């Protein structure tokens, strides 16, 4: 565990170092430099992958495999693209492969997964004491609605609205033209609204109440 503490120290010292420089250091044989990259991106990638494939264990495996592939191919990375774009592309491709594999074997599976291969989980209120039950329930419904979106809409929505990447980056990661990305995001959002129906209206009402409260108590 002392090695992990060393990596944490190294991470703090390397806050100002760019991903590309860290990658160059790892090419010279420094595993610690690559671990700083891992610490920077592990949660971001996990958030993307877990919502894309809908299963925590598979998402963990995919994130680990993403980093290993990036490490193996670190000499092929070209600085013309951002490192974040490159690593999201690897993760996205692995997640898509997993979804394709699932579709192939869907008829053999008798688990508790729905037709899209997503596992439904009830929100765990106890593990999130700072969020009220209503918010958690609403979030769970939104997560389910995201899971029900077609793969290409879901990928675009997660990258844009949850991960906050810009359109150019998404276009490179997904491997489609910019116009297609914009279209997918717009249609994905409209599809989400339709799917959520009553919840969307409830969110609207809640939003209006909050706005009124802010206006009356500035």
């Amino acid at each position: 565990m002392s090695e992990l503490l060393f990596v944490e120290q190294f991470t703090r010292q390397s806050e100002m170092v760019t991903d590309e420089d860290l990658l160059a250091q790892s090419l010279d044989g420094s595993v610690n430099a690559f671990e700083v990259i891992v610490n920077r991106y592990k949660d971001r990638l996990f958030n993307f992958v877990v919502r894309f494939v809908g299963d925590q264990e598979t998402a963990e495996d995919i994130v680990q495999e993403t980093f290993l592939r990036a490490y193996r191919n670190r000499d092929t990375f070209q600085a013309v693209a951002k490192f974040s774009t490159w690593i999201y592309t690897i993760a996205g491709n692995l997640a898509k492969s997993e979804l394709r594999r699932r579709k192939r074997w869907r008829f053999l599976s008798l688990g508790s997964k729905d037709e899209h291969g997503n596992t439904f989980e009830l929100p765990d209120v106890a593990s999130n004491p700072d969020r009220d039950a209503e918010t958690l329930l609403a979030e769970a419904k939104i997560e389910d609605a995201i899971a029900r979106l077609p793969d290409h809409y879901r990928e675009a929505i997660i990258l844009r609205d949850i991960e906050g990447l810009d359109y150019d980056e998404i276009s490179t990661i997904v491997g489609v033209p910019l116009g297609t990305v914009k279209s997918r995001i717009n249609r994905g959002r409209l599809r989400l609204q339709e799917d959520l129906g009553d919840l969307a209206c409830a969110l609207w009402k809640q939003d209006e109440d909050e706005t009124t409260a802010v206006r009356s108590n500035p």
Partner: protein
Amino acid sequence: MTCAESQNLFSEYLEGQITGTVQQGLVEHLEACPACAQKLKLMRIMRVRLSKLDRKHLPDTFSFEMRRALLAEMNRENIWLNRLRALLSPRPQTVWSAAVGTAFAAVCFAVLWLTFPPGGQSGWRSDSVTEVDAAQHDQSVRYVLEHLPFDGEPIESTVKDTARVMPVPPSQAREVVQPVSATF
């Protein structure tokens, strides 16, 4: 502008990516169409909600497992690198080992080649057998030289000629060869 056309522009409008006449057209449509205006407002709320969704975290053991996997990967790389380096810059000991090995392999190959030649007969010959062969060869050459067809006529072989070419009968020749080859 129709409802479908305006809805196609919602995302870009919310992110401030449309300007000029397109924006003007959309605003006019939204003022005239409450259904589209409501959809746009819902999309704005939905975007905010999505950006505030609870962040998921990897278990604490992930970093430890990742480090182990990376070290294993680094070791695997080092093994191949070391093998490549050894090939590109061999040590003297390695060179001598390779030379001795190659010489030994060459000797083994030669012995096998002579013992089991491609023709099927053993390549090993005793001196006595070689002498018999040389005598037969000399006889044959002499016979051919004496009977060269100067006028282009073919040579007719006779029993007498054969006897001249092979002074040692085959049975006798076998008696000479067999005891010698049995020693190998």
